[in-house]
């Protein structure tokens, strides 16, 4: 289940933020925000996706650049809110 979630989020991140000609290999541990792949403005798209896909509500105080910086960290946050 956890692996499935990670794959799903990774697939979304690549589709949403990586251009075909970017030549980037994004993995579960790739820094997304601190590396500039995802900027703080467009991070909102990821939040919208997570809330819809996993039927959760992420408070702004927790949807931080740090918490969204890798797929692994995002999974931790989602699991916390799934209860």
């Amino acid at each position: 289940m956890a692996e499935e979630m990670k794959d799903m989020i990774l697939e979304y991140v690549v589709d949403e933020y990586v251009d075909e000609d970017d030549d980037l290999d994004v993995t579960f541990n790739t820094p997304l925000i601190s590396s500039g792949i995802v900027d703080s403005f467009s991070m909102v798209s990821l939040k919208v996706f997570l809330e819809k896909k996993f039927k959760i509500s992420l408070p702004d105080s927790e949807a931080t650049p740090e918490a969204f910086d890798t797929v692994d960290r995002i999974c931790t946050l989602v699991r916390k809110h799934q209860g």
Partner: protein
Amino acid sequence: MAYTEKARELFQKDIQTIKDKGIYKEKRFICSPQDAEIEVEYPEGAAREKVLNFCANNYLGLSSHPAVIQAAHDGLDQRGYGMSSVRFICGTQDIHRELQDRVSDFLGMEDTLLFPSCMDANSGVFESIMEQEDVIIADRLIHASLVDGIRLCSAQYDTFKHMDMKHLKKKLELHQDKRHVLVVTDGVFSMDGDLAPLDEMCALCDQYGAMILVDDSHASGFIGKTGRGTHEHFNVIDKVDLITTTFGKGLGGASGGCVSGRKELVELCRQKARPYLFSNSMAPPIVNASIKVIDLVTSSTELRDKLEWNAAYFRKGIEAAGLAVRPGNTPIVPVMLYNAKLANDMSRDMYAEGIYVIGFFFPVVPAGAARIRVQLSAAHTKEHIDKAVAAFRKIGEKYGILGLDKKGIIEKYGM
């Protein structure tokens, strides 16, 4: 005293962090009027140097145009220095109304509202018209002032990949359940100089019942056959719902901005936009000079034609010299260097050659996309441009990047 030593040390540490990251903004002083040729004190305290300016937003060369200066003098003589008021109390003169009407005619919009700056216009427009049940869908590379304005309002927001129409369509489908949908884009993107495909965007907005707002700050006065802007270039003047733009770039270069568009939307800004309600009116000399600017750009296309020629001539020269430039057809020509230090070093060397240009790197542009952004002006002569191209060739040769593409430059210098 509340400003304790501890507080001072912490703030000093913050400043040092900025310096350590290599993103500290140095002071540069221009000791002459803004123009193609300027006198600069840089670094602070150094002897003044006469250099050619290739980094101003002075697209039409109107910053120091004699007719504009005269109009500013006339405004000062006839309507005074300042208004000492916000617009809605006692800060609106007949010339503010005249400028608004002239801008509406020029842009082909129903109504216009002046703001102290376009930054203010962008800060105020979204909170005035969008509510919680609405959504704003923005291009990911829109100007920082639009980002701030969107964050300040209560509407939901989402983003789409830069100028990717398939992605925009996907987002429009995703948000069909919202009350109002507003698509937001720059007309000309200031860092890349590329034009938003407004024809395709407006067609998508029609299809999905969405409104569109275009920040045309880097286009008003010179993009399009008669300089109306990006919407004229793509022949969608009647399809664009809102334009925000500035009098601080092509249209004069001083300050002031506006929201122009559907009359109900502009009226809501007049009633609700906080930067309009709580900040002073544009000063009379600037208003009067801006009216003169509209006179100049409507009476002749000479300046925008010259700018177009200059941009094409520079682009041809720089490409022939073997530098990597982003393709485009605007007066913004990014010379791509990819590596931040290289961009910084080359811009410093260009200054020593008498060419004033600036290197841009993350976070101003995406990581690994450092560049020197060159901005052409109608005030540049052919000789100015030849000198700039020759300097780029010389400095490019010094760093061994002539003829190298993105891959070659990154292999040599890294990202």
